[in-house]
Structure formats: structure tokens, C-alpha cells
């Protein structure tokens, strides 16, 4: 009787407790997104079977940033613990379809995370530490036009970009250092190996000097093999690089290796600079040399430059130009959207557009 009573007391106390934290807890949901579209020109093009198709004028989606909309929220659970979630869809501004994602409705990000002083534990569809390191090391902000993401998607499509079935842990920043590890379950009954993926990264940043390295290993198959855009390309990836900030100028350099099963094994060396001339005008440029380790006759050189004019905090006008020179069987493109692959020889392209963030 006494026990039952105390249990009842405890339940009441807990109830009060839960209620009071509820009253204190701040939770919110934000709708956010990017709409980005522009005019695109390339001097040459190839079709899906690799045949030359000449000049191209087009309206393209996502020249500077991937168009998207999403819902994100946070609840303060008390005791320094927070729950965050993010549901993000990649949209195509030219036809209203999906883009910059795995092709599903919330095909960019769909995760929840517990955040505390001892780190973040994230579950669901998410960017892998490997992809996030690519973002950190890109001198042009990883614009879909003329940056290292062209090589990334050309090599492994959406693998590690929208990583399904994943769980990750990211440490807090300690003395400038931050580490992140991710594991993705293949989920195939009776076959633990199929579709299994893992990734890790280590970053040091003291505000001026940035150093980062990351790895990715993924098997083909598993339950994520059914995403409309492939996200289980079997590959081993390695990346290392750094950067330095001198006032308005930031310089970055990186090396990335994509060892893709049954395809090219590409090494990509890249570097570039970003100069914020005024808080409203940013100019940047980058160059990437790629070479196939299996056959070094296959190589390419991609160079690009861009200028961003921040019309307001939300709206940016941009202009970008790129040139790529392909040798052998290499098909490095100018832009993820409009020219993911280009044929042998030199191709030149440009994009002028508007990005609005909300």
C-alpha cells in the first residue's frame, strides 16, 4: 500500500516535472528554402550516350545553390539536451520536379538529432562527413556550377550526399578540433554487408587555419538501392585539404580520391580563392585537375570563376564562367545542372542567375 502510494506520489511528481519542463521548453518549427535559377550557355554538349550535340542555351536550376525547401525544428528537452529535426526536399526550379537529392520527397535530408554538450547523435537521411568535408574545402562554396561537386556527382552520383539509413555522431569542438563518424545500415535481410556504408571526418579550425580530412566506404545494394537517384554506388573515398583566411581573402586546396568499383579511379587535386571585396560583392575562382589512376590518359582540367552580388541578405545575383578540357575517356562537366558531363576537348560555359533564400 505504502509502495503503491509512493509510486503514485512519484508519478504525480513526474507529471508535475514533465509539465513544468513543457512549460519551459521552447520548441519551434521553421519553414526555409532556396529558389535558384539562371540562364546557362555551353559551347559544346554531349547526350546521354556520349554523342556531341553542339551549343546549348538553357534555363537551369540551381546555379549557385541547390534549390530546396524544408522544415526544421528544435525542442529544448531541458538539462542541456535538445532535439532537432530537419526535413528537406530538393526542388527543380525549371520544371517543379525533384533535384539535388535522392529523388524522393524529402530526398536531401530527413533526420532527427539529439544535441548536447557531449556531441550530436543524428539518425536518418543525412549528408555524410565525407560530403560535408567537400563543402568545407571547396573554394567556391560548393556551387553546383563549376566546383568540386561536379566531380563528386560525376563519380558517385548521390552516394554520401543524401545518405540513407544513417546514424552519425559528431563531437563538440575541442581546441579547434571536431570529429564526426557515420554508419549506414544496408538493411538487407540475411546480408549484413550489402549497402553498408561508413564515413568519418576530422577537422581543425582556429578561425584562420582550416585543416580537414575524411573517408568514405560504401558497398552496393541494401534497401537504399531503390532511391530514384543512385545513392549506393560502391566506392572508397579519401579527402584531405586545408585553407587559410587573410582578411577578405580565403584560399583553399584539397586532394580527393574516388575509387569506384567497376569504373574510373579518379584523383582530383583542387584549389582556389574566395575574395569578399565588400560585404556585398564576392569573387571567387577554382581549378581542379582530375586523373584516372587506372589509365592516366583519362584526365581533365576544370577552371571556373564567379561573382556574387548580395542584393540583400536573402537575394543574390550571380555570374559564373567555367572551362573544362577533357582527355581520353574523362567526361568532366561544367555544371551539375545542364552539363554534368562534357566530351573530349575544350568546352566553355557560363551561367547568370538569381538565388533567393528564405
Amino acid at each position, binding site marked *: 500500500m505504502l509502495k503503491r502510494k509512493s509510486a503514485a506520489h512519484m508519478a504525480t511528481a513526474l507529471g508535475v516535472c514533465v509539465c513544468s519542463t513543457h512549460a519551459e521548453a521552447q520548441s519551434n518549427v521553421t519553414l526555409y528554402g532556396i529558389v535558384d535559377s539562371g540562364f546557362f550557355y555551353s559551347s559544346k554538349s554531349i547526350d546521354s550516350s556520349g554523342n556531341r550535340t553542339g551549343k546549348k542555351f538553357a534555363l537551369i536550376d540551381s546555379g549557385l545553390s541547390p534549390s530546396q525547401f524544408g522544415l526544421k525544428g528544435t525542442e529544448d528537452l531541458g538539462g542541456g539536451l535538445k532535439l532537432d529535426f530537419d526535413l528537406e526536399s530538393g526542388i527543380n526550379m525549371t520544371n517543379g520536379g525533384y533535384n539535388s537529392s535522392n529523388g524522393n520527397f524529402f530526398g536531401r535530408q530527413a533526420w532527427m538529432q539529439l544535441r548536447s554538450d557531449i556531441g550530436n547523435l543524428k539518425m536518418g537521411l543525412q549528408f555524410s562527413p565525407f560530403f560535408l568535408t567537400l563543402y568545407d574545402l571547396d573554394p567556391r562554396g560548393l556551387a553546383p556550377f563549376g566546383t568540386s561537386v561536379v566531380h563528386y556527382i560525376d563519380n558517385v552520383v548521390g552516394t554520401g550526399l543524401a545518405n540513407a539509413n544513417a546514424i552519425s555522431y559528431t563531437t563538440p569542438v575541442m581546441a579547434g578540433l571536431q570529429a564526426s563518424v557515420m554508419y549506414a545500415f544496408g538493411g538487407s535481410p540475411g546480408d549484413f554487408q550489402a549497402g553498408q556504408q561508413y564515413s568519418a571526418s576530422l577537422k581543425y579550425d582556429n578561425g584562420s587555419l582550416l585543416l580537414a580530412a575524411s573517408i568514405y566506404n560504401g558497398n552496393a545494394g541494401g534497401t537504399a538501392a531503390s532511391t530514384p537517384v543512385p545513392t549506393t554506388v560502391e566506392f572508397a573515398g579519401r579527402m584531405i585539404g586545408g585553407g587559410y583566411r587573410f582578411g577578405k581573402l580565403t584560399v583553399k586546396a584539397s586532394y580527393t580520391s574516388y575509387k569506384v568499383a567497376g569504373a574510373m579511379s579518379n584523383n582530383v587535386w583542387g584549389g582556389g580563392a574566395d575574395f569578399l571585396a565588400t560585404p556585398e560583392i564576392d569573387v571567387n575562382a577554382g581549378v581542379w585537375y582530375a586523373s584516372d589512376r587506372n589509365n592516366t590518359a583519362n584526365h581533365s582540367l576544370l577552371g571556373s570563376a564567379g561573382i556574387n552580388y*548580395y542584393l540583400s541578405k536573402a537575394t543574390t545575383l550571380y555570374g559564373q564562367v567555367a572551362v573544362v578540357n577533357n582527355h581520353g575517356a574523362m567526361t568532366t562537366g561544367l555544371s551539375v545542372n545542364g552539363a554534368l558531363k562534357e566530351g573530349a576537348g575544350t568546352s566553355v560555359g557560363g551561367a547568370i542567375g538569381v538565388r533567393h533564400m528564405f
Partner: protein
Amino acid sequence: MNRKHMSAGLAVLLSLAGIGGVSAQGNEAVASDVAPSSAVPSAREARLANRRLAKTVRSRLAKVKGIDVLNIVVVAKNGTITLGGSVPEAGQIELVVAAARDTPGVEAVNNALRVKAAGQ
């Protein structure tokens, strides 16, 4: 590192105070002989001081919990800091502005930070 900063800071202070002779630059010593009270830091010294202050602010920002320094651009000019570039979450902007304002040597902060998350 700190000692280096301090001695550099001291050099700036001394040159500001017109005791330019310690900088071991002949022409400055002459200048301070001619007009000891009106000596101003040379353009080069001012530039170095600006760079040093921007670097101090950057390293301070990197140490504040909850600030992602990756895309923050810090420019200093005579004690005024201009913050450009971006942070991944809107909530970080006030942390960045506050940390910059609290840095010794900073007199004013212009905030031109935008919001852009990783992968955007």
C-alpha cells in the same frame, strides 16, 4: 604566440606614443626627432595592426561554443570590425557580433553576416 602579439601590440603603442626609435627604422627615428608628439603609425604599421586584430577576432570566434567559423570573413580597419560571409544558423549571428565586440582593441562592429547552411 601571445607574447609575440603582446610585443607587436607594444610596438604599435610605442610608435603611437611617438617613441618610434625602438622600431629600429632609421627614417622613423628621424621623424620622431623632428616631431616627437605628432608621429602617426605608418601605413604599413596600420595594415599590420589591422591584420593582427582581425586574426585575434577570428581566433576568438573559433573558441566560442556554438559558432561555426568556416565561412565568416573578418576584416579590421582602425578598430572597426566588419563581419561578412555567412553562418549556418541565424541564431549564431548575435553570438558572433557579441564575441567580436568583446575582443580587446575592437571599437565598433559592422555586421553583414548572412545565413547559409552546409550543403546550401
